[in-house]
C-alpha cells in the first residue's frame, strides 16, 4: 500500500509527463480495441453465416462470390430447384433469394449491411429457428405481403408488429419482430420467396438452393451429381465454403495480431523510454533509498508499480476510448445510429476481450518498466550523491 501510494505520488510529481505517457498507452489500447473488436466482429459475422446451413450444400450460380453461406448476387432460374430435388441422394432442396442493400421507404437511404431473405414460408425455421419473437409472429400464409424483421432494424426505425414498411415501392406489413443471436439476422427482413422475387424484381429467379443430402449420403457425392447434371451452377459443401473464406479470415486475423503486437511493442518502448528518463532524473532519490537501507526489490518495485499504474490508467482510458471508437466506426459503416450500438457495446467489444487487452497493456507497461527498474537498483550511492552536491 505504501509502495503504491509512493509510486502514485511520484507520478503526480511529474503530472504532465505521466499524463502524456498514460495518453500514449491509452491511444495504443484504444487502437488495439478498435481494430481488434471491429475485425473480430466482421470475422464473427462471417463465421456465423456458415452456421445457418451446417451439413447442407448450397447451390449457387457458377463462379459467383460466396461469403460463407450466402452468395453475393448471381441469379439462377427457380426451375433449378426441381432439378436438384430430382437428383439421387437429395432429401430436400429449398430455394432462397438473398439480397444485400435495401431502402426501407422514406425512412432511410442505402443500408449496405442490411439484408433481406426470401424463402418459402414453411422453411423459415431454417433461418429463424432459434430466434424468439419480440412482438407478433410468423405470417399466416405465403400469399400476403407480410414480413418479419430483425430487432436491430426494428429498433432503429421504430418498427413493431403491425407496422407498415415501404421497400422498393412495395408496401409490406410487419407480422413480427424477432430477436436473434445472429448479427446478420438482427439486420434482416425475412419474407416469402414470392414476395422477395416481386420486391426485388427477380421473377422466377433465385440466387441459392439449400440442399439437404439424404441420411448416409456424403455432401461430396451429391455435389458431384449436381454439378454434373445441372449446367451453370456450383454446389458448395461445408468445407468448401469454409475454404473460400478461410484465407480472408486468416489474413484479417494475422493483420489484427500484427497490429496488436506492433502497438504493444510501441507501448513497451514508450514506457521504457519515459521510465529511463524518470529514473535518470530521480537517481538521487534511488541512491538515498539505497543509502537508508531499502532493499533492491523495494526500489525495483517502486518503478514497476509506477509503470503498472500507468498501464492501469492508460488501459482503462484506452479501453473506454476504444469502445467509443468502435461504436462510432460501426455506426459510420452501417448507418445504424450510435445509440443502438451503445446499448450493445458489450456485444461489439466483449468484456472478456476488454479484460484481455487490459491485462496485455498492463503487462506491456510492466515489461517496459523492467530496464528502468533495474537501472534504478544499480544506482551507486556514493557517486550519485556526490555528484548532486
Amino acid at each position, binding site marked *: 500500500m*505504501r509502495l503504491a501510494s*509512493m509510486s502514485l*505520488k*511520484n507520478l*503526480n*510529481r511529474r503530472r504532465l509527463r505521466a499524463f502524456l505517457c498514460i495518453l500514449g498507452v491509452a491511444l495504443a489500447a484504444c487502437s488495439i480495441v478498435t481494430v481488434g473488436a471491429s475485425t473480430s466482429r466482421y470475422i464473427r459475422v462471417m463465421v456465423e453465416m456458415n452456421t445457418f446451413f451446417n451439413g447442407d450444400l448450397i447451390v449457387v450460380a457458377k463462379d459467383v462470390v460466396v461469403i460463407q453461406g450466402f452468395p453475393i448476387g448471381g441469379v439462377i432460374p427457380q426451375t433449378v430447384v426441381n432439378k436438384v430435388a430430382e437428383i439421387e441422394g437429395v432429401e430436400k432442396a429449398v430455394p432462397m433469394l438473398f439480397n444485400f442493400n435495401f431502402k426501407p421507404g422514406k425512412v432511410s437511404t442505402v443500408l449496405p449491411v442490411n439484408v433481406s431473405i426470401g424463402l418459402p414460408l414453411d422453411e423459415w425455421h431454417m433461418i429463424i429457428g432459434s430466434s424468439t419473437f419480440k412482438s407478433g409472429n410468423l405470417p399466416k400464409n405465403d400469399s400476403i405481403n407480410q414480413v418479419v424483421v430483425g430487432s436491430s432494424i426494428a429498433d432503429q426505425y421504430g418498427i413493431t408488429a403491425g407496422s407498415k414498411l415501404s421497400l422498393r415501392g412495395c408496401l409490406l406489413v410487419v407480422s413480427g419482430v424477432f430477436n436473434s443471436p445472429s448479427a446478420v439476422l438482427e439486420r434482416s427482413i425475412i419474407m416469402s420467396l414470392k414476395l422477395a422475387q416481386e420486391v426485388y424484381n427477380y421473377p422466377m429467379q433465385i440466387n441459392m438452393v439449400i440442399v439437404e443430402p439424404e441420411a448416409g449420403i456424403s455432401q461430396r457425392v451429391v455435389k458431384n451429381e449436381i454439378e454434373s447434371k445441372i449446367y451453370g451452377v456450383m454446389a458448395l459443401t461445408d468445407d468448401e465454403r469454409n475454404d473460400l473464406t478461410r484465407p480472408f479470415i486468416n489474413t484479417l486475423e494475422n493483420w489484427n495480431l500484427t497490429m496488436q503486437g506492433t502497438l504493444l511493442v510501441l507501448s513497451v518502448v514508450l514506457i521504457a523510454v519515459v521510465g529511463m528518463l524518470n529514473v535518470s532524473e530521480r537517481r*538521487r*532519490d534511488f541512491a*538515498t533509498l*539505497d*543509502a*537508508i*537501507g*531499502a*532493499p*533492491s526489490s*523495494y526500489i525495483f518495485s517502486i518503478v514497476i508499480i509506477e509503470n503498472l499504474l500507468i498501464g492501469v490508467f492508460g488501459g482503462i482510458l484506452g479501453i473506454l476510448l476504444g469502445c467509443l471508437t468502435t461504436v462510432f466506426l460501426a455506426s459510420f459503416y452501417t448507418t445504424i445510429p450510435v445509440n443502438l450500438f451503445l446499448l450493445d457495446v458489450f456485444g461489439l467489444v466483449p468484456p472478456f476481450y476488454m479484460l484481455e487487452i487490459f491485462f496485455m497493456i498492463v503487462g506491456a507497461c510492466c515489461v517496459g518498466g523492467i530496464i528502468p527498474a533495474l537501472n534504478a537498483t544499480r544506482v*551507486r*550511492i*556514493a557517486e550519485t*550523491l*556526490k555528484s*548532486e*552536491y
Partner: protein
Amino acid sequence: MFIKAVNLTKIYRKGSSKIVAVNRVNLEVKNGEFIVIVGPSGSGKTTLLNLIGLNDYPTSGKIFIDGVDATMLSKRERRKIRLLRIGFIFQTFNLFPTLNALENVELPLALAGKSQMEQRERAIKLLKSVGLADRIFHRPRELSMGEMQRVAIARAMANNPEVLIADEPTGELDSETSREVVGLLSEINRKQKATVIVATHDERIVRVASSVYRIVDGKLSLE
C-alpha cells in the same frame, strides 16, 4: 558499535588520471564518541564518510564493524547495517519530495518491518523531538532548510541507530539554524549514547566533538 578502518583507500579513475580521495586512512571509532572530520573541499571527507557508512567500497584496505570485515559482507548484509545500525544525514537533506515529513521519517521504519502503528508513533515522537510537531504533514518544499535538515535527522534516527553519520549537516543552513542542528546532534550523542561522526567546516560542531580529525588530500590525522 566499534568501527575500525585499516589502510582505507579509495581511488577514483577518470580516463588515464586517478584521484586518491582517501589515502590509507586508519581510524578507530568507539561507542558513544563524537568525532568530527574537518578539511577543505575535495579533501575526501564525504568519500571517507561513505566508506564508513557502507555506502561505498574501498579500493583497498578494510573496515571492521564490531570486528567483522564489512568489505566482505554481502550487499544485503551491508544494507541491513545501513538500515538498522547506521543513520546517515546528507548535506542536501535528500528528503523524498513526494512524501511529507512524517512519511519521510516513517520510511526507514517501514523498511525495517515495523507495523503501521509503530511507524506512526515513532515518527511523530522523533519529529516532536526535533521541534517539528506542527510540521509533520508538510512536504519538503513547504519546509525551510533548517526544518528539512531536522526531518533528515529524525529520519536518520528512525531505527535508533548506534552510529549517526552526518556529512556537512550545517553546510546549507544559516547560523541560527546551524546552532540548533549542532545542539540536536550533541543531544543525540549525549542522551542516546549514539556515536556521531560528522564531516564539517563548522567550528560550532568542532567545539562539541570528543575527537577532531583533519583530512587533507585523503590523508587523515588527529588534531
